[in-house]
């Protein structure tokens, strides 16, 4: 299905001004607001055959030149039959950094959402087990945010040694 047809179908379901699009090389992106994100992804999965969530990641635009929003969350969708890809992007701002979880649509979102939560502190409402995944659970910062320094905030030196009985 051509990209224009996907956009038209989404616009007819969500409203004409619900989404904007952008394109760079072969990456075709659909920008939606966080409130309509879940509905847009659900339509893309159920009616437009994007059956795989190939990629889910976030970007912190704190120091990006000319950026207005703080976080961008990108969903890379793939149609495994035709090989088409579409990227759905949404922007978030503090203090409300939460999104609906897409675990109910794609179970592959489980660890991908946990990683974004672990690195950026973006909450996914409705995720069954939203815990830190790569960082230790007593870690208090969000390491991939741009205000987190390259050399850390001294967490490494403040770790309490764990005895064998506690581990």
């Amino acid at each position, binding site marked *: 299905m051509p990209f224009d047809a996907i956009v038209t179908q989404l616009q007819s379901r969500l409203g004409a001004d619900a989404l904007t699009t952008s394109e760079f090389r072969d990456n075709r992106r659909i920008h939606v607001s966080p409130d309509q994100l879940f509905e847009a992804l659900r339509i893309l999965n159920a009616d437009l055959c994007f059956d795989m969530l190939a990629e889910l990641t976030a970007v912190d635009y704190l120091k990006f030149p000319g950026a207005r929003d703080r976080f961008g969350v990108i969903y890379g969708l793939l149609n495994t039959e035709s090989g088409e890809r579409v990227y759905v992007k949404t922007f978030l701002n503090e203090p409300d950094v939460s999104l609906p979880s897409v675990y109910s649509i794609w179970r592959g979102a489980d660890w991908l959402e946990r990683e974004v939560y672990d690195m950026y502190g973006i909450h996914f409402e409705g995720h069954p087990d939203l815990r830190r995944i790569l960082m*230790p659970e007593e870690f208090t910062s969000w390491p991939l945010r741009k205000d987190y320094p390259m050399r850390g905030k001294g967490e490494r030196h403040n770790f309490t040694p764990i005895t064998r009985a506690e581990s």
Partner: protein
Amino acid sequence: MPLEQLQPLDATTEEKDYLWTLNFGPQHPATHTTLRLILTLDGETVVKAVPDIGFLHSGFEKLGEDLDYNQYVTIVDRMNYISPIMNEVAWFHSVEKLMGIELTPRCKYLRVILGELSRISDHLLAIGAQALDLGGFTAFLYAFNQREYIYDIFETASGQRFHPSYLRVGGLVFDVDDDFIRKVRGFVKTFPKAHADVCRLLNRNRIFLDRTQGIGILSKEMAINMSCTGPIARASGVVRDIRKDEPYLAYPDFDFKVVCAQEGDSFARYLVRMEEMIESLKIIDKAIENLPTGGVSVDADSKVVFPEQQAVYRSIESLIQHFELVMPNRQWTPPVDEIYGCIESPNGELGFYVVSDGTGVSYRARTRPPSYIHFAIFPYLIEGHTLSDVVAVLGSLNIIAAELDR
């Protein structure tokens, strides 16, 4: 992580108190690298498995925001260290897509050859380690013997066995020599015999069959729904190969088959890997015999590659260009945008999401690691199987912990 937090079932109730917990890893020989599983068992049957990862997390993505496009190649090398060249190909695929660089034909062919060699190397390790865990020590030795020849070829090309760091933006560090071509030709000649040996050792091996057939079955719907790619998805009947579906480098020039299976069990994953090696060898054979002449890096006037060393010493233009690329406040000027590029790595879709703010350092360098995605399906695959099947399934998924944790 304390065990209580991971207790998935309420063991205090009367009917569940026969369940017991086993801590598997992180330092267990069968996990091969540091990954940990907390298994809840009913006798010997696994009721629930909870993976606990992050032991090797070393902030690779944060480093990607600090090192420039060329420097980061040393870090991507260390993600999937079994097939380092494939990671380099993936990283520069995204970066070159971002900058809009069209490679020279010779560079494309050399990247294909090196990439396919590392695919064979990765599959040999996956199969060898899987056989080793199931008691097939001989097959492991045969597989690792061939990997040694591949490392030798990498060393001939780049000077480094394990972490070659051979690729650069717009090309390669330097061209290969005749010795490289001779060694690749030799490998193409000798590998089918070693491959047949491993086949003979495992394909009809009663112990190997009993321990892999029907174990860890992944259905096609589940594979798609859980974002599986590569040999694991293909073993479940997902006919998808990025080399065919979204061709990159010189792959349209080659004739190869996409190897698929229907069963989706550990044995199907083994068979798919075995057959893929033969397809890779066909690609290498064709590529090395038709290797185009010419330079390995794009034209130096494009301002994205380092000029040759002699040119830097002898002409002011080349000296300036070299200076422009190494100074941290100059370097490349990619468009201010973001891009996702992916390739077919031995484990599946390996992608990089690169965000550029117009400087020589990426603003965000996100990796889409196949091992991470595939380890997430492990609890579903192992449920209901016995404790001894844990290694059979783990081996068939080929989890590389450095890529898993990054």
